[in-house]
């Protein structure tokens, strides 16, 4: 496969994978460029033992992981607080849901986040995720269960805090 073809077939997948792994929108282009440059440079090492998407997702994971490690030390606003602050303005634009989703996912470790988003948003099956992340299937299910519980609990906390501030976040 030539680089252009690889890019065309996978740019959407790489883009949304990076976003779902916590790369902020303004940084996605840079991270995606890094992913594809790594992929192009190593194409000769890809021997078809996995799908291209599997290989690209692993590069996405490493890029997101490295970025998260660098960002961690300078993160100024805890994610749950950020979500709470999203409740404060009287109106939000159409990015509101994605911002809330980011805030809810930010507290997960990257492995849980990868499983949660691949399963819930990308539509991968458990066995496919196990292959992609190179972990046993029970580990995938365990991470998914914990990620779901975390997602639900965090959403409830944010909602309760919003209600405390007098915001109409409940129905």
């Amino acid at each position, binding site marked *: 496969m030539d680089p252009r073809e690889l890019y065309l077939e996978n740019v959407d997948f790489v883009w949304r994978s990076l976003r779902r792994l916590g790369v902020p929108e303004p940084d996605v282009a840079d991270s995606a460029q890094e992913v594809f440059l790594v992929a192009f440079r190593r194409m000769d090492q890809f021997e078809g033992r996995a799908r291209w998407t599997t290989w690209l997702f692993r590069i996405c994971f490493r890029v997101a992981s490295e970025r998260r490690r660098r960002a961690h030390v300078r993160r100024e606003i805890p994610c749950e*607080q950020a979500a709470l602050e999203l409740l404060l303005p009287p109106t939000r634009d159409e990015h509101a849901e994605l911002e809330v989703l980011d805030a809810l996912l930010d507290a997960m470790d990257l492995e849980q986040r990868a499983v949660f988003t691949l399963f819930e948003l990308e539509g991968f099956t458990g066995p496919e995720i196990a292959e992609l992340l190179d972990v046993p299937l029970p580990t995938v299910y365990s991470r998914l269960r914990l990620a779901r519980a975390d997602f639900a609990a965090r959403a409830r906390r944010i909602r309760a805090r919003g209600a405390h501030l007098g915001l109409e976040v409940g129905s």
Partner: protein
Amino acid sequence: MTDPIRLLDSSSLDEGARRVLDAGARLAPPPGAAEELWHAIAAALPPGLPPAGGGPAGGDLGPALPPGAAAPAGGGGAGLATGAGAALSAGALVKTALVGFSIGLGVLFVGGTSARFVAAPAGGAPAAATRLAASAVPAAIPGTAPSPREEAPLPAAAPGREAPSVTVALAEDALSAEARRVAEARAVLHAGDGAAALAVLRAAAREFPAGELAEERAVLEVEALVALGRRSEAEAAATTLLGRHPRSPHAARVREALR
């Protein structure tokens, strides 16, 4: 070992949670971003690896670009903003994104038995994740398009670890009770009864020593102490609060109370 039903395929998922997850499922590069990115990549490619496909470095991806990768296709709006907008009406409030979160998600996790999960209606509208996988994921992901799931239980909890369903159910009850206490304290404080508010808050502190709303209780305690004229105690409580939560969203409110 079977996959559980996806949240977006579950009829138990409330509307607020569905919108938030749906926005994530519809993620795609903004219009034009994929082409712009290709130009940047082509320019940065090492000399021995020119972009293939017959075009010069930085060449136009043009017709070969699949719908959704760069230009908006038929008003489909592959962009992030457009994609998110498609999931909700324009100008939606973020607070509405969270409407109904706790109830729907609570149902999903409390119990954790198959009875809680209902398969998507046969012949009904496909879930967002399915639509996305079918329309936006290129053929490079063979075999990954999700199919409607049958009713399926969550996998059993790992040995030696408490099932999250039980934990979450208990936490939800405690959180609701704590939230009621906070609301009660807030109401009496706003009614001018600082002493009653303080009593409610102190009782809540004993009842929920590790409560999720400790920060909110602490804010109200500062305000109650100020209302009672117990300024030094209020300042001490504020110092403790801001020491524990230096970037608390309530910080400005606490400082204002002490002015």
